[in-house]
């Protein structure tokens, strides 16, 4: 029999966004990946910038390149990414170790899933991240001085 042609219907990166019921955990999942990639990118840039001192270039000294306001915003974004990634990460560690997902139950329609069980944890973690961000923002705006 001749090989039948198939059409590859894998969603790829769009699958992070499409095909599903759009629960809050999916947004959390996407944001976790994006913040993770963002922090990684920052880390790589950080290594490049600090390694420049080997050539005698100090971009971070008072009045230097990194003292433009745009970097303040960028720094805050890195901080925000960190805060979200850390608190959401704690939730994921707990969930992935089988805490906060509940026991297997008899499925009775309308189905309740482990997502309902862990939702309070998600909410608490997001509140903590928000408090962390607010305190950090206060500091970033220089209000703490």
């Amino acid at each position, binding site marked *: 029999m001749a090989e*039948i*042609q*198939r*059409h*590859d*219907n*894998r*969603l*790829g*990166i*769009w*699958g*992070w*966004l*499409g*095909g*599903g*019921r759009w*629960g809050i*955990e*999916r947004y*959390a*999942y*996407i944001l*976790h*990946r994006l913040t993770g990639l963002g922090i990684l990118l920052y880390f790589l840039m950080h290594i490049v910038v600090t390694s420049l001192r080997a050539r005698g270039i100090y971009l971070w000294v008072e009045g230097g390149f990194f003292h433009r306001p745009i970097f303040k915003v960028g720094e805050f974004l890195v901080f925000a990414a960190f805060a979200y990634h850390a608190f959401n990460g704690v939730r*994921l560690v707990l*969930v*992935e*170790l*089988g805490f906060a*997902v*509940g*026991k*297997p*139950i*008899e*499925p*009775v*329609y309308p*189905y309740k*899933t*482990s*997502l309902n069980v*862990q939702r309070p944890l998600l909410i608490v973690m997001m509140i903590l991240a928000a408090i962390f961000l607010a305190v950090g923002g206060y500091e970033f705006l220089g209000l703490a001085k």
Partner: protein
Amino acid sequence: MPEDSKTVRQIKFHVTRYNPESDGAPYVKTYTIPVREGMTVLDGLHYIKDNVDSTLAWRYSCRMGVCGSCGMLLNGQPTLACNTQILHIAKTDLTVAPLPNFDIIRDLVPDLLSMFDKHRSLKPYVVRADEAEINDPAGEFYQSPEELEAYLQFTYCIKCGCCMAACPTLATDARYLGPMPLAAAERYNVDTRDDGRRQRNQQTGSAHGAFRCHYAGECSRVCPKGVDPAKAIQLLKRKLVLDYLHLARRKKPCQKLHGPGQGKPLPNIPAGPAKTV
């Protein structure tokens, strides 16, 4: 269709079509059909095939949410065509597409083999040393109702693939085992008759195994049978970690009690009625 059920509305079905012999890529064809109350998407597809376009292909069998053949993407959500009433999800338009994350064989028919191959690789059956006892049982295994409940939910899976279509991890990692096979692995891992967890750990704990899942939970949200594969995967991960750290208790699989029909009923249980056949 019974004469007395009246047409309620004309609904436009936007159906993905693909013929591997003549089409380079899938395209969408629109059919407007009369829809009556209670009509399922599966009924709608039958109407199209019977009255409008006999070349339309899809897969179905039981038409009552049992066989798992008719998983499709309806208005962007993976679900069963036979279990979904048109008027519950469509006012004027309904998009019907094959389940994503699977190759399309033709029209609405996805190639589910990639899922079944992964499923098979996880030994989705009772594994134990005394194999003869499984193949040719000489007695019954004892399992308490509580032990049954530990995996019962995961046995309701009908292998429809809706969870695989919804999973964002699978969308970018074709080799990720996916929610259905992993839930099946957990179903057998916690079965007290089974002794194969450590064998399955080789696959479930691999680079494309359970730890690729980050609990987007879409699998559990779309599952038409309430199987909650996301829960199964997290419980599976917990055991993987415990096994890795050598902290899991080693338990022998439950043993044979007695031959069929030789069990003694508990006291205080009244005798059943006399056999009639």
